[in-house]
Every structure is written in structure tokens, then in C-alpha cells.
């Protein structure tokens, strides 16, 4: 098997996919999180400002999902096909929510009628909340494993099985983390009374996160088999949850000092550490079979050919700096507080 820097190609691609979905979670995370606060703002102007805070950047943040999906399809086609077809209903709902959400952003402020704006506000709030929740549900399902038989054929239930108690817990954890992230982002972009209100809301969000994270962690340790195994083998992994906790504990301090940018960096780090924890935990498995471990989808039996992975790693080496350049330029352009003008939503 071909390697680069002593790491084999499927592992490298695992890192690429992991980085892409982490980028998605961190950046689109605050967009979804900001949307999940939407109905907590009462005035029409506050809601407009909140939407325009993400206005110029959410399309770019969503790119991470598109590239992540492409990377999964290209690098681990078996994983892409198995997961999406096994979780058909949740993914279809997720996709439809994405459509509704972007429609709400585009159409919400295009008319002045009260009923029009209220309807879109509800759609916007609900779609953001449910998207954040569903992403957590998907993660919970991946951690729990699937009823995979030979040839990766899924034999589990297809309608409501994806909503197991554990998946619901990870769903709430993700939602609360995104909402925390979203509130800090909006603090960065707003002023005046809306800003004061967000400081208050952020506290609620953090409490929501700490409770759901605590409950989910306990449940994971007690009820999910095999979680502690990799910790016993590699005690250094214990550092990750501790780091995640330290990073999130730092957020209230930074917020009270009004260092919002640093606060968002630390809450992003929390997310990154938690995702790294999941990644280490799973490696080299992608989808765990609850029937027989030998039926699991792993990065080796799911991977594309060495040749194809090599080509795509080259593409990433060329494309990633370009993409980073565009993003930095975009974020620099729209740095600072939201100012509504004739181009705003």
C-alpha cells in the first residue's frame, strides 16, 4: 500500500474527510446556531440583523458540506452509499430542511407583510434547529453502529429507528453546541440591545450545552460498548475530553471580558476536540456493524483505489490553499458589525 510520510492513503483521506466535516461543523455550526436563536429575537429589525450577520458568508460555509460530501463519495464510496441509503429518511429530511432554510434566507425580507415574515421566521428557526439536531442524530447513529450484514447490506428498521434515545441525546448536544457557537458569533456581529440580549441568551445556551454534554457522556460511557477500549489502549486520548472541557470552560470568561473572537475560537476548539475524539474512537472503522465486526465498513474496505486516492490527495494539496485564500478574503471583507444597506436581505 502506498504511503506518504509513513501514513497510508486511506488514513490520509480519513483525515481529509474529518477535517472537511470539522470545518463544516465549526463554520456552518455557527450559522445554524444563530438561526436556532431566531425566534428568541422579538423585533423585526433584530431578526433582519441576525440573518444579515450570516448573509454574505453562509454560502461559503456551506461549501464545506459540498466538498465533504464529494470527498466521502470519492474516497470512501462504500461508506457514502451505505450510510446514505441506510439512513434514507433522516437524510432526505435533512436535505429538504437545507432547501427550506436557504429559501427562508432569500425570501424572508423580500416582502413587508407581517404574516409573510412571521411564516419565514418560523421556517428559518425550525429548519436551523432541526438541521443541527439531525446532524447530531447522524453522529449518534454512527457511534452506535448499524445492523450491517454481509456485503454491507443494511437490515435494520428504516422509518423511526434512527431516533434512538442515544441519537436524540447526541442531537441535543450538537444543537446546544451550535447554539453556543451561534450566540458568540452574533455577539461579534451586533451592537446595542440585541447585543445585550445575546449575552443573556448565551448563558442559557452554555447551560443547555453543559447539561446535554454531561448526560450524553455518561450515557456513552455506560451504555455504548467498546468506547472505553481505545482509551485503555491509548491513555493519551483521555487528554481530548479534558481539553474539550477546558476549552468550553474558557468561553464564559472570555465573553465577560468582551473578547468575542477569542471566545469563538475556544468554542470552535471544543467542537474540534470532540470531533477528534469521535475520529480516534472510530478509526479505522467508518460504520460499525452491530451484527459482526467483520461486516463493518472500514477505511480499507470502503476506500477507492490507491491511484484515485493519490490523485485526489494531489487535488487537495492544490485546492486547499486556494480555498483558504478565498475564505480569508471573504471574511476580511465582511469583518465587523452588521450594517444594513440596500444590498442586505
Amino acid at each position, binding site marked *: 500500500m502506498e504511503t506518504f510520510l509513513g501514513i497510508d492513503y486511506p488514513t490520509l483521506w480519513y483525515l481529509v474527510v474529518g477535517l472537511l466535516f470539522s470545518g463544516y461543523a465549526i463554520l456552518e455550526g455557527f450559522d445554524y446556531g444563530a438561526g436556532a436563536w431566531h425566534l428568541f429575537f422579538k423585533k423585526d429589525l433584530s431578526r433582519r440583523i441576525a440573518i444579515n450577520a450570516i*448573509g*454574505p458568508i453562509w*454560502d*461559503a460555509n*456551506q*461549501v464545506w*458540506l*459540498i*466538498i465533504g*460530501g*464529494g*470527498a466521502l*463519495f*470519492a*474516497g*470512501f*464510496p*462504500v461508506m*457514502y*452509499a451505505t450510510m*446514505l*441509503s*441506510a439512513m*434514507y*429518511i433522516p*437524510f*432526505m*429530511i435533512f*436535505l*429538504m430542511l*437545507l*432547501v*427550506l432554510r*436557504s*429559501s427562508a434566507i*432569500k*425570501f424572508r425580507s*423580500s416582502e413587508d407583510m407581517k404574516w409573510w415574515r412571521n411564516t419565514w421566521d418560523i421556517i428559518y428557526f425550525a429548519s436551523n434547529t432541526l438541521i443541527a439536531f439531525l446532524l447530531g442524530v447522524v453522529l449518534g447513529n454512527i457511534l452506535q453502529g448499524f445492523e450491517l450484514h454481509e456485503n454491507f*447490506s443494511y437490515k435494520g428498521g*428504516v*422509518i423511526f429507528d434512527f431516533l434512538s434515545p442515544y441519537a436524540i441525546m447526541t442531537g441535543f448536544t450538537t444543537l446546544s453546541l451550535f447554539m453556543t457557537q451561534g450566540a458568540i458569533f452574533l455577539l461579534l456581529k451586533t451592537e446595542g440591545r440585541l447585543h445585550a440580549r445575546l449575552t443573556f441568551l448565551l448563558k442559557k445556551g452554555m447551560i443547555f450545552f453543559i447539561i446535554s454534554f454531561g448526560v450524553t457522556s455518561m450515557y456513552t460511557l455506560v451504555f455504548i460498548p467498546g468506547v472505553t477500549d481505545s482509551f485503555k489502549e491509548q491513555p493519551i486520548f483521555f487528554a481530548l475530553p479534558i481539553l474539550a472541557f477546558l476549552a468550553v470552560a474558557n468561553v464564559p470568561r472570555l465573553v465577560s471580558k468582551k473578547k468575542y473572537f477569542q471566545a469563538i475560537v475556544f468554542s470552535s476548539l471544543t467542537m474540534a476536540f470532540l470531533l477528534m475524539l469521535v475520529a480516534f474512537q472510530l478509526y479505522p472503522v467508518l460504520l460499525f456493524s452491530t451484527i459482526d465486526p467483520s461486516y463493518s465498513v472500514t477505511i480499507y474496505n470502503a476506500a*477507492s*483505489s490507491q*491511484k*484515485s486516492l493519490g*490523485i*485526489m490527495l494531489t*487535488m487537495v494539496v492544490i485546492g*486547499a490553499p486556494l*480555498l483558504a485564500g*478565498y*475564505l480569508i*478574503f*471573504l471574511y476580511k*471583507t*465582511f469583518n465587523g458589525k452588521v450594517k444594513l*444597506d*440596500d*444590498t*442586505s436581505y
Partner: protein
Amino acid sequence: MDVEILARIQFAFTIAFHYIYPPLSIGIGLIMMIMEGLYLKTGNKQYEILTRFWLKIFAITFGIGVATGIIMEFEFGTNWAVYSRYVGDIFGSALAAEGLFAFGLESTFLGILLFGWNRVSPKVHFFSTIMVFFGSMFSAVWIVVANSWQQTPAGYHIVGEGFNARAEVTDFWAMVFNPSSVDRIIHVWQGAFLAGTFLVLSVHAYYLLKNRYVDISIKAFKISLAVATIVSLTQLLSGHSSADGVAVNQPAKLAAMEGHYEKSAPADMYLFGWVNNETQEVTGIKIPKGLSFLVHQDFEEPITGLNAFPEDERPGQVNAVFQFYHIMVSIGIFLICLTLYASYLWWRGTLFEKKWLLKIFAFSVLLPQIANQVGWFAAEMGRQPWIVYGHLRTDEGFSQEVSSNQILFSLIMFLVVYTVLFLLFIYSVNKKIKHGPYDEAENPDEFLKYV
């Protein structure tokens, strides 16, 4: 209903709906780029007004294109899992390249394009317009490459057997430049240019008929007419070259396009007609042996007909392929006549006096859209029964785990949401057109000062 049929209906519906928007954004993007370039070059505020006006319509179109496009990216996995495993090595890498090199470019610069007027200099803004336009062109490249590989696979080998069989890339550039990709990329680009330019032509023809925004509408109409005339002519060439490729690489598809059944005989070319698949006869008006001449420049040269292929390796819907193909060609010819005649009148200086012609332009916005849709339907239905030509059949490619009830659920969901989305799109574009580029109640000069 059968899972395969439902999966196909859902895919066809979602992709056809999606395909209303990206070609429009590519075409509007081109015209907008020309308008903004002229603004920077001449400093004439009228071009700025035009750019800003079309940017609003571009924003909605692009937005719906992105939203409906994400669904396509994941629908391969949800509904076509077997296919996805089979082609992931190749098809997946084209999609990943699209995300990395095209979509990333257009989506980041889109933010600056839409919201940057008051934040960046005019030059940087123009640069963003160009980047978004190029991004959308590159998107088309990678998507058409992926589809073309399904039509004319190249640069690959098949590894494994039965369930484990899959295509793996052996030569990346041979895969990218497979026999049909270049022709089809150009054909798709030009179809997109026509979709966008005809929307611009239609809207400004409408203003001219209503005697509103006359000065800027004449400018916009001339720009778009010049582009539309050139593109409709060159589209004929790319279409011809594409058909030549089909003759070599997918003879069953070409045979279906003209309803040609005989194993090996000179083939006719129909202007229009009706195919009876049972009797294998076509009723209609034809140029005898015209297809032979078109492909081989020789009326007597034989063309492989449908009967040369086993019953289960022919497109099932011959008449549909025939009709879709002929509608596309007829529209193409009509657009050439229309734009050439209008350009002639422009040269004579009487173009804007011909109300009836402007009326035709106002309605002709639908024609390139229809041609784009039916063209793809002919291409995809003509590829049947193959999902990867010659290797994987459509009835083997769908997800085995997904039941027909699940697809019915998602299909109904798509039908409802997309219908609402379409009505919103029409409503809001219509409102922007009715409102116009600036408030007429005010003096345009006042508006210009405000801008």
C-alpha cells in the same frame, strides 16, 4: 410501484428542476460580466444600473440552484447506492473536484458579489463577478465530465466481480477527456448562455414594448442579442459534433433519436414524426438518407440501427427520445433564424421599431429552457438501459435497502416543496421585473446621484 421506477422518477424530477437554475445563472452571469465590464470601461452609470438590476435576479436564481444542487450530490448515495459503490472511484472524484475547484470559488466570491457593493472597490467587485462566472463554468465542466464518463467510459478498468465489481481509474486525464466530454461541455455551456441571454432579451423586450427604461433596455438588448446570435450559430456546430460522437460511441442512442431500426442501412433524417415501436415505423416528414449524409457526408453510407442490438440493450422509450431530440433541434434552428433576423434589423437600424419581433423575444425566454430540458432527457433516456454505458444497467444500480414507500415519501416531499419554491421564484422574479431597475416616479438622474 417498483423501486427502480420510483427512484428514476425522483432523480429525473429533482435534476430537471435543478437544471432550470444553473444554466440561467451561467447565462445571466456572462451578460452581467459584460455589463459590469462596460461600466468600468466607460464609466457610464447606465451599465451600473443594469448590472445591479440583473444581480438581483441572478441572486435568486443562483440561490435556488445551490439549494437544489446539494440534493443531487447526496441523491446518488441515498437512491443509487449500488451505482455509487461501482463508480465512486471515478464519478466521485469528478464531484469532489467540482466542490474543491469550482463550487468553492463561486460560493465565496458570491458573498462579495451580492453584498460587497459598498465594501470593496469597483474593480474588486468586477473581479468577484468574473470569479463567480468562472466558478459556475467550472462547475458545469466537472459535472458534465462525470456524466459523460457514464455515457462514454474511458481511462478505467473493472476490478472484482459480482457485488464487488467496480470501476477504477487508470488514467485520470483520459477519464476527464473521455470521448464525449469536450463536445458536451461546450454544448452545455452554450445552452446555458442561451438560457440566460434569452431571459435578458425577454425582459428588456418587455420594457421596450411598454416604453419603460428605453435607453438602458436598448443597451442591454444589443449586448444580449450579439451574444445570442453568435451562440445560437456555434451551438449548431457543437450539436453536430456531439451527434457525430454519439454515432461512434453510442450508436443505439443515435438510432433511437431518428427512429432508425434496420440493422445496417442508410438512415433518414426527420424534421418531425412519430415512432411506432411495435411496427418499427416512423411517420413524418423526412430527408431520405439525411442522417447518413449528416454523419458520413455520404447518402449511401449505412448507419447501425436498433435491431443490431439485443432487445434488452436498446433504449425502452424510442419515441420519447425521438421527440425530445427533435424538439431540441427545432428550437435550436428557430433561435438561429430569430437572432439572425433580429441582428439584420439591428444592422438596418429598424430593430426597435418592430413590435411584433420584440413580442416574440418577450415570449422566447422559454425556448432555450425547453431545449435544455429535452436535450438532457434525450441524452439520458437514449443511454438506457445503461447507467454506465456497456457496464452497469440502471435496473442494477439502485439502492437495495430502500423501499418504495420511503421513496414515495421523499418524492411527495420534493413535489410539494419544489412546487412552492418554483412559485416563489416566479413571483419574486416577476416582482423585480415589474418594479424595474429603478423607481420611475423619481427622476432617473436623482436615482443616479443616489446610487
